[in-house]
């Protein structure tokens, strides 16, 4: 039945996906199995997006579905696998930019892959990242942005982290519609990820998570 859930999400059948989730949970399914289905479905959505079979509406709809489903699943998850969270990731859309479609998907995918994610939202001031690194102590910082002006904000954020003497204790990744290796180098980040899967792979590589 969780195959059906994968298919429903991947095919954008929102009502069906939610009904299936409820049915599975009521039937005693493991919450983690539902999240795994979400993860599998998102991989399919990602592939279809990559092949231009899907476009932004599908990404947003999928993101919204994930939010609803995880809201349903999360309370039960806490009880079953409490305290088994992995490395910490600090995430946000950089100053001056308000795009969050991709960031939300990355946040979800990191979360279901066992990372503890703190999402600072959009238009996050440079100083906010620095302050949060000090208190939250993440292993990974993920900077998201879509506008060309975000390049500068990313650079400023990385520089501020370095100036605060925190650069050595975090790995920094950047991502968002127009980001590439060149911008990564410009911003002084450690890597860029072209999609949510890549972000998860990088975070795993950096933290030694499986």
């Amino acid at each position, binding site marked *: 039945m969780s195959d059906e859930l994968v298919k429903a999400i991947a095919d954008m059948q929102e009502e069906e996906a939610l009904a299936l989730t409820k049915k599975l949970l009521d039937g005693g399914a493991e919450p983690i199995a539902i999240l795994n289905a979400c993860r599998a479905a998102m991989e399919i959505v990602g592939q279809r997006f990559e092949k*231009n079979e899907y*476009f*932004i*509406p599908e990404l947003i709809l999928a*993101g*919204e579905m994930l939010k609803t489903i995880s809201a349903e699943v999360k309370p039960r998850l806490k009880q079953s696998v409490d305290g088994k969270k992995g490395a910490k990731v600090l995430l946000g859309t950089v100053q*001056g930019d308000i795009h969050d479609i991709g960031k939300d998907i990355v946040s979800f995918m990191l979360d279901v892959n066992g990372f503890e994610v703190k999402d600072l939202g959009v*238009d996050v001031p440079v100083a906010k990242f620095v302050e949060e690194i000090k208190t939250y102590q993440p292993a990974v910082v993920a900077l998201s942005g879509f506008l*060309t*002006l975000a390049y500068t904000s990313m650079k400023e954020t990385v520089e501020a982290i370095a100036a605060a003497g925190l650069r050595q204790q975090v790995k920094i990744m950047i991502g968002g519609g127009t980001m590439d290796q060149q911008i990564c180098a410009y911003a002084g980040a450690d890597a860029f990820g072209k999609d949510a899967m890549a972000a998860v792979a990088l975070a795993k590589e950096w933290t030694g998570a499986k």
Partner: protein
Amino acid sequence: MPAPTHQVDFEPIGKRVDVPAGVTLLDAARQAGIGLASVCGGEGTCGRCRVAVMTGEVSPPVDADRRFLSQLELDAGQRLACRAHIHSDVKVNVPKASLVTDQRLQVGGLMRELAVEAAIRACALEVTAPSLRDLRSDLDRVTEALDTAFGLRRVAAEPAVVRQLSPLARQTEWRLTTYVRGARGRDPEIVGFAPSDRRAVGLAVDLGTTKIAGYLVDLESGAELASAGLMNPQIGYGEDVISRLVHASRSADGARELARVVQEALDNLAGSLAEQAGVTRDQIAEACIVGNTAMHHLLLGLPTRQLAVAPFVAAASAAVDVRARDLGLALAPGAYVHVPPCVGGFVGADHVAMVLAADLDRADRVAVGVDIGTNTEIVLCRPGANYLTSASCASGPAFEGAHIRDGMRAATGAIEAVRITAGGVQLKTIGDAPAVGICGSGIVDAMAELRRAGLMNERGRLNRAAPGVRADERGPEFVLAPAAQSGSGRDVVVTQGDVNEIQLAKGAIQTGIAILLEATGTAPQEVDEVIIAGAFGSFLNLDSALDIGLLPRLPRARYAQVGNAAGVGAKAILLSLKERGRAQHIARRTGYIELTTFPGFQRRFAHSMLFPAPAAPAVAPV
């Protein structure tokens, strides 16, 4: 040693330009004043600036070229002008589709009766000539004559105006018309002189992101003497406002360049309008320019960085009078340009002008005004409450033909209407010429028809299995006009990417309208009137626009397509101080909603990108 230069020869235009080695073909085109399309501002991401290198050497193709051009096209010398650096003298062919000129520009609009009460008063004077017994200065004798004949006290005049006075007074034997600004106010000022029979005229401009519409009017009668439209030359630096703001905020040179090109265009416009109307430039005693906040900032040279990023604030939004000459406009020597106030975000004076022209601030009905453009402004007015709420959508230039594979503006050979039946595809092109591309009204028609014919699903995916749809490595596409019938020798198609662009554009506008309705507690059926302004809106097939969900499904009779209302409003503000005051009032009491931070924006936007089921009833239940 100076850097070597190379000559670039642009054909079939026949323009040649010498440029330093290593600059791009796009830079060379800009320098040559050729309106080469560049949506992304030369970032290599839009694929619109394709040209064919016929002779000479340029840098080898890069990834960006391969993204937009097939191997066959690359072999034939086709390149993106923004990615090709010049390494020798070159000869380049610029295809028509890559040019931004030669299109239908809507400048007309409905104008209601208006009591003219201009800022300028033309005062005809007969001044006593100087003599040995009357040694007053030239200016003193004029100001004293103004006092005697018109009761105007302490009229000021700048040196620039005096420079015009002394020779002209002697030429006309002291029979002069004096253009006095603020004659009814506290600080009257002479802005120019003319021979006694010359009336004062005014220049009104709707400065759009893509198009500029200009009008010359008689400041006494209000009669329109001439009108003209042209492309905003800033397009060469990016078709949407954000890329231009980014260009301007990167360096002081960038900002100066953007200001300069638009100022030059406005000055040329003033010249050609004057010629068309049979008046001289120095009869233009006052101007009024309206534009969205970005156009306003770029024209006035205001800082733009804070406008390009959240929370998108203007550097200044109040109405301002600046000397025309400070904007590079050669009008009457002391003439002012009145720039009406902006509302907030990107909602600028053009929107204020539209509200004013459509009387939306006085409406006794629930009305929505939509000015569809590269930036689409929407206003909602609720009766009684005296309340106006506006929003601005980043709809992008897709409806103006940009970002669309075979997109073009409304010029000869552009497909403007599409019908898909069992028998095949029927097209109507502008000028009934063979199809070379598709313009905004055509692409909206195409979307509605593809959906109706079942060739495209709700999410806008083209059905690869459907007849007429073919797919290559770039995805599926639908052929509107095969190469054999087209005017370009290439298939004219609608690609999946085109559908995506239209989804973004229509989704932005649809979301904007929906959020405005919700934020003001208005049910769609309550809307008594929808006013569609702007050039694209004038030619838009309303049925198709309703079918794709771009506009709310209301009875057709509630829609009015009013043409360039912003231009009409600019004329009214130019002609009447009362209207000028009204514009201030509108700007002050118009609420502004930032759409992207409105709760649920994302979800609405996603849903607005969907295409409704085609079987929907023709009208909503009333």
